């Protein structure tokens, strides 16, 4: 992709990121969002994260892959346990990366 188009995409990304960050803090000092909107927005983080996570874990090369060599799927198990037990964002990411790196280097899993 042309770097000019990348730049324009970045400007668009900035706008759609900044507006949701800015509007509530500017406008909610006197007003409140309708309860139904708040209820819907509360569901968004979990829904969007799962919608991104599942394909990354379960789909490899356009197909569902539950095989033992699907490293991304099985590395999620220790990452999940660390996130659950330690409640640490940083530790989870590091454990996930290290498990994948070690599996590739030591065990020779190629995926």
């Amino acid at each position: 992709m042309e770097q000019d188009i990348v730049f324009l995409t970045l400007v668009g990304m900035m706008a759609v990121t900044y507006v949701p960050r800015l509007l509530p803090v500017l406008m909610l000092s006197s007003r409140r969002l309708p309860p139904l909107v708040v209820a819907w927005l509360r569901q968004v983080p979990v829904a969007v994260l799962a919608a991104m996570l599942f394909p990354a874990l379960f789909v490899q090369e356009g197909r569902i892959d539950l095989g033992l060599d699907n490293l991304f799927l099985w590395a999620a198990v220790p990452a999940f346990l660390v996130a659950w037990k330690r409640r640490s964002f940083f530790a989870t990411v590091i454990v996930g990366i290290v498990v994948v790196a070690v599996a590739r280097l030591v065990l020779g899993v190629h995926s």
Partner: protein
Amino acid sequence: MEIESTRHGVLTGVSRALPVVLGYVPIGLAYGVLAQKAGLSTLNTLLMSLIVYAGSAQLIAVGLFAGGAPPLSIVLTTFVVNLRHLLFSAAVAPFLQRWRKIDLAAFAYELTDETFAVHSAQFATEGVPGRAEVFATNVTAQVSWVFGTALGILVGRVIADVKPLGLDYALPAMFVALLVLQIEERVQVAVALLAGVVSVGLLLAGLDQWNVIVATVIVATVGVVLEQWNRT
């Protein structure tokens, strides 16, 4: 006195950001490396960390750029992924009613999952500190993110492949962390499972690049219904 207390506030603010820095430098590095491999110029790679400044959205965007996704789809995905900031912003709004609009605008620019976590905990327990302290936390966090990005750009020039380092797992691992940390009620487990399954289904059905947005909108709506149901 005034200068002394401002200096103290800045130092306190910086120290509050340190746990965030520990997370931002390595993940910023992963972003920097992956952005280089996706074919983004050095300038655009740094610019994204400066003007978008949203960790998970940046890593997702890099994946979409690498896959040749259309710009509109990248912008829309970013919008949906970052929509959660509406909630963060709404949650801190009552604490910042006495701030000037220009300060609110600057504060909102650097409102991320992690800075929100730091501020909301503090605002609720100790009250709102001086602006110098709040901004010191935010600026320190973003500087560490940009610093990590720059390191990643340098590392990306040296290493040929990110796979042996496991850096291509930064994003899935981050999703695992964010997802698990978000889940507090049983309804949310159902929402997560349903959104994941719908997203995979849409992807396999050929709705490439749009599966995340469509699954999120459908399942968030279902989640609202489930929640009302559960209550009555």
